[in-house]
């Protein structure tokens, strides 16, 4: 079963710049970074790791469009189709300007919640999920670079050396079942 186990090597840092530099160095050596864990968003680190920009924006647009269409169709159904009303002497099929506010609000509502839900699905976050941490302080002031031992071009020595050169506080290895 040993072959099924996943082995990781972690470099633990206390400086965001050092994380950035070691990720850049390792990428230059051709090593794939499994992930990094940071207490705050380190801008540019995702690009340095080679993560593509998220497609959540497309999802948000689709959700917004659904909200917009829902609002228009529903208002037309109510005010023109199902139970037409003459209000203020205006023709019963000419209500469109007064549909704008509700259409706008529903577009925003669907975008926000649709995108929120997509975000939670995509990041597999759910209420009560038990976190998997390398170090308790990774949500406080420490930064972790995680590399899988099976990664492309993995050379333990080289990785260790890079971590040490960049001033890692600690280097850890861990094995997971599955």
């Amino acid at each position, binding site marked *: 079963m040993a072959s099924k186990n996943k082995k990781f090597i972690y470099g633990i840092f206390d400086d965001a710049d050092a994380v950035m530099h070691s990720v850049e160095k390792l990428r230059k050596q051709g090593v794939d970074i499994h992930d990094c*864990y940071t207490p705050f*968003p380190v801008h540019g680190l995702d690009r340095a790791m080679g993560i593509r920009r*998220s497609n959540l924006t497309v999802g948000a647009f689709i959700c917004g469009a659904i909200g917009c269409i829902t609002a228009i169709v529903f208002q037309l159904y109510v005010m023109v189709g199902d139970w037409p009303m003459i209000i203020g002497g205006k023709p019963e099929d000419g209500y469109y300007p007064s549909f704008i506010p509700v259409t706008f*609000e529903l577009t925003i509502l669907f975008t926000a919640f649709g995108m929120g839900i997509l975000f939670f699905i995509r990041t597999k976050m759910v209420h009560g999920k038990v976190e998997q941490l390398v170090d308790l302080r990774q949500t*406080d002031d420490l930064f972790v670079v995680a590399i899988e031992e099976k990664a492309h071009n993995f050379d333990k020595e080289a990785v260790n050396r890079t971590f040490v050169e960049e001033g890692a506080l600690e280097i850890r290895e861990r094995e997971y079942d599955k």
Partner: protein
Amino acid sequence: MSYESPIREPLVTGGKTAADVSNDICRPLENKPTKLWWLGFGLALICLGILVYTLALSSFIGLGTWGINKTVGWAWDITNFVFWVGIGHAGTLISAILLLFRQKWRMSINRSAEAMTIFAVMCAAIFPLFHMGRVWIGPVWALPLPNALGSLWVNFNSPLLWDVFAISTYFSVSLLFWYLGMIPDLATIRDRATTPIRKFMYRFFSMGWDGSVRTWARYEVVSLILAGISTPLVLSVHTIVSMDFATSVIPGWHTTIFPPYFVAGAIFSGFGMVLTLLVIARKVLKLEAYITIGHLDAMCRVILLTGSMVGLAYITEFFIAWYSGVEYERYAFLNRMSGPYWWAYWSMMTCNVISPQLFWVKKWRRNPNFIFFMSIVVNIGMWFERFVIIVTSLHRDYLPSSWVMYSPTWVEIGIFIGTFGLFFTCFFLFARYLPVINMSEVKSILPSKSHANENEHAHQPEVVTQ
């Protein structure tokens, strides 16, 4: 990495490190509440009790317990509704608009301002719901469901229905924005927790957050989009609130300037309330290093700007009333200024137009005691603005036989005081159980370790990683 100009004040003072940020901001959550907290919370609970009692009276006895009458059918309740909704505008404005403008000073105030937004909108919602009379069925009438009220459906041509959609969307999107922004901080508290209950609660709400860069990358996209859609949302909400008045044909209400004027007023009052709360909170929770005088100064400038916009709107309204040549419109405005409610009008003018101009003086903008005083003045002024718009426009009807005066009963005053109870109860609980400052964002604007060391030697302008 971004370059921070040396002429800019540092956003976090006292040479704090990331660990200091966690310690300082988690301290109030992890220690026993202070006597001051119990005192404040107790007072808030008493006011909340008043709210429950007066609302029960309004429901069981009816709206006869209020001072409203046939001519002035909208009065204290709608005044307070607009007052609270206005206060609810600063939070999302700070977190959304200032995020889009990359204003980093928002980072230490956005969390508490957003909390304030949510609590203020909750207070606001009470008024129209109870004004509907039968609160146990009223909210159902507002939903787009077939009903037996004359027409089969709700009326999508009515600004009151637009308001239902606007306020509920604003509340739920603000709540989502607030909660999403808090997840990384909840994880920080979870990982510091020492008792199983704390661990369980914060674990439940932090959704397994581990600070993975892959998650952060998506999180940043979500924050940006949420900010992008919240910005027009904030503007739309008070625009629609103003349409409750502007789409009617009452002299004094029927003006096209209302939407921008209400939005400016809402931001003005919202920042007033944010300052009221933060001037105290930074002192009590010892957060002066994060909410600096510079932050207060920046907020005072927003107050100065929006206060001037509101002043301009008042003058424009007056000019247009005269220029339109409509006698009813002219009378409505003359009556505001010199009629029986002249004191309300002049309170509004003094508090909203003249007093914010004092913030041109830099020394006063940087004096917390003065700022606190002024923030109360702004709150009072904005309450009077809504009172003036609503009551003085209505009380002199077209027919002089319908002319009346309006004064609130003790039940109405009780509801208003009670909403402060609700607001502060929520705020005290928030300050007790949730991080009042966005820790992860504040950490991101601290100088990184390697640069902090460089700066010590060179006295060079700060380079801030972000």
